[in-house]
């Protein structure tokens, strides 16, 4: 069956280039699958172009603000165009690390201790006075992250109290809310989730081993040969099972649909700690999700095909039933 697929890509987000790389791969796959492809670099004419396109479905290959946070999803809901991946609410929950972590804590899913602040809290409510107590609770080094930013942009490590103000200012460059998080030393794991006929399934656990960098930063993420990826990760069966279980629980908790990726740290004690979820995992050549899919025997084309199929299937359900 040939479908007209609009690929939404680019946009003004800081992760524009990553999005363009994801989209280029998706476009190749869709063409190989025999679909009619309409690539759209997202800007203020989006709705108009989508309406004129006669597309049957939108493949959202956007990352970061605007594309991954529910904004575009909301617009697509309004014009009634089916789209790949999670709905509005799940996108909002996943993009916002603070919200994600509060939900995880409530659900009893392990996640590193954290405190979150808005810029207003510092500027108007004297939040700085609480820093010493927080630093004592979290210990050093601690991690400072913008609440909503992907690809490790704006993530800072603070080794001592003197580093904290600078790290906060840096993180506030990307969002008006940031979180301070206990640094969990351990192995970096990622678990991809894919909706199958019988419900969501976890893909094999992937481990990212940076070759040089202290942590898996932006460069390591998108540079070929900068990071070793091991999938399936070399883990005891019970740890693998636990990581997958937690990933599925996180996916369900956030209300994701279609696919998602859950990132976690595995400390010495063997209990994975969930860091965050990506509602639209990167699909570039060096991205984690497609590698995990491959390890499960799902080629990139199969994956793209499946996501389009899920989008169309979902739209057949009564509005609000799934999303």
């Amino acid at each position: 069956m040939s479908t007209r697929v609009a690929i939404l890509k680019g946009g003004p987000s800081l992760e524009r280039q990553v999005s363009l790389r994801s989209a280029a791969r998706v476009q190749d796959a869709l063409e190989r699958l025999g679909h009619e492809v309409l690539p759209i670099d997202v800007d203020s004419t989006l709705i108009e172009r989508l309406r004129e396109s006669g597309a049957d479905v939108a493949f959202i290959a956007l990352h970061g603000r605007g594309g991954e946070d529910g904004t575009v999803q909301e617009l697509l809901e309004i014009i009634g165009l089916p789209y790949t991946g999670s709905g509005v609410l799940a996108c909002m929950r996943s993009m916002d690390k603070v919200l994600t972590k509060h939900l995880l804590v409530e659900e009893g899913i392990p996640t590193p201790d954290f405190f979150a602040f808005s810029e207003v809290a510092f500027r108007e409510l004297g939040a700085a006075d609480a820093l010493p107590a927080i630093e004592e609770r979290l210990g050093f080094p601690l991690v400072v992250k913008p609440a909503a930013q992907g690809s490790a942009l704006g993530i800072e490590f603070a080794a001592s109290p003197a580093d904290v103000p600078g790290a906060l200012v840096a993180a506030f460059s990307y969002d008006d809310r940031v979180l301070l998080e206990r640094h969990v030393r351990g192995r970096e794991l990622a678990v991809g989730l894919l909706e199958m006929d019988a419900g969501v399934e976890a893909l094999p656990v992937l481990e990212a081993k940076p070759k040089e960098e202290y942590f898996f930063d932006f460069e390591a993420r998108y540079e070929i040969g900068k990071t070793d990826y091991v999938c399936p990760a070399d883990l005891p069966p019970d740890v693998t099972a636990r990581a997958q279980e937690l990933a599925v629980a996180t996916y369900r908790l956030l209300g994701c649909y279609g696919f998602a990726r859950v990132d976690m740290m595995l400390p010495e004690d063997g209990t994975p700690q969930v860091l965050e979820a990506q509602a639209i995992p990167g699909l570039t050549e060096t991205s984690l999700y497609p590698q995990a899919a491959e390890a499960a025997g799902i080629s990139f084309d199969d994956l793209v095909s499946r996501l389009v199929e899920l989008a169309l299937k979902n739209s057949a359900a009564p509005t609000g039933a799934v999303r």
Partner: protein
Amino acid sequence: MPDRHQTTSHEIERYAGLFARRTRQMRSSAMRDLMAITARPEVISLAGGLPDTSTFPPDTFAAITARIARESCASALQYGPTEGFEATKHCIAEVMAAEGMHIDVDDVIVTTGGQQVIDLVTKTLVDPGDVVICEAPTYPGAVPVFSSYEADVVQIEMDADGMRIDLLEETLGRLEREERRPKFIYTVPTFQNPAGVTLSAPRRQRLVEIARERELLVLEDNPYGLLRYEGDPLPPLRALDGGVYVLYLGTFSKILSPGIRLGWVAAPAPVLTKINLGKQAADLCTSSLTQKLVEGYFAEGRWRGYVQDLCTIYRRRRDAMLDALAEFFPPQAEWTQPGGGLFIWATLPDFIDTEDLLAKAIQQENVAFVPGSAAYADGRGGSSMRLNFSAVSENDIVEGIRRIGKVIDAQISLYGTISGRAAGAPAQAPEVEPADVPTNVVPLPQRPSDTKRGARGS
């Protein structure tokens, strides 16, 4: 339907296994990705190093190309000699004469932009692990070249008079004790990119002496020498040295057009022979067509007038930027006062990381600059930025600086709130001994103390 193969991560690994070791040094970066979104029309970009090519008269361009088509079509479309056309070299000799150097055209090779000279010289001289010395900060485009040949880059700090020659000598002494001989010193002595400062006459003299005493080569990169907005020209290093130890890099990019990709190198014969062989391997020859274009343009005899026009335009833009900086940048910021060229280098309090600042500036204020870390091989320069004043209008310069100032103000006040340090207090004393300067701050000139901070804009 395009027949494109599916790339699996397995295949990626297979390719990765085949990459040369030196490609590990070639890195893309978050910054490069960020710069990609500065191309949006609503963004005022002070990031480029671009001359304003809209100032070039289209009729002149049309007339020259028409004449090439009429008179030398076949040879313009043909390969040319590796070292370049004789006629082009005479144009080069004319430009060098205007800068106070008199050369034999046989001492010159025409290259594909000045960038190729940096590449060919490094290729010719550097083995993996060899030391290349350059300024701190250095031309951001030179860093990836040095990295790709696995050079060990050692950067020498600058002040208002350019590279600190005392520190250079100290470093050379240290390297000698470590039995490491630097292969060459890369310098942009005049209106330096990115700092905008100029190496003083005594330091020029001393640098040339050092090269002679130690038998060291110097690569003098001089794209901006003719873009002087005030004061008298200083002699190029090559003029002082006579071309024994100084390799000279020139380019038509800033005085005519970067799109024609024409530069040149003047060097001692043995070095030039090797560079020639390197160029043969790289691209056989420089574009015949654009060499003909330069030849035609110079034949019209108006190139000096065009450079004068550029100087008039750029001088106004530089002044607009300096005024805007005084008005909109906070008292903790410092910046250089270039007498020419295309760039001003500004340094902020060390708690500000200009890469993060750029992310915020692009997203919230639609304005861009080059973060200072791009000009270092070792990740320093984090609180500095390069500002270009040649590529945008005076209005956009003022507005761009106003927007950047706004983002900086917000960061300073937030830092003050968080750290309990009073916002607005200078982050450091005006006179600092080099030893006390944090490694990420470049001791470039302070803002003149008599500069009054103007009333803030809206």
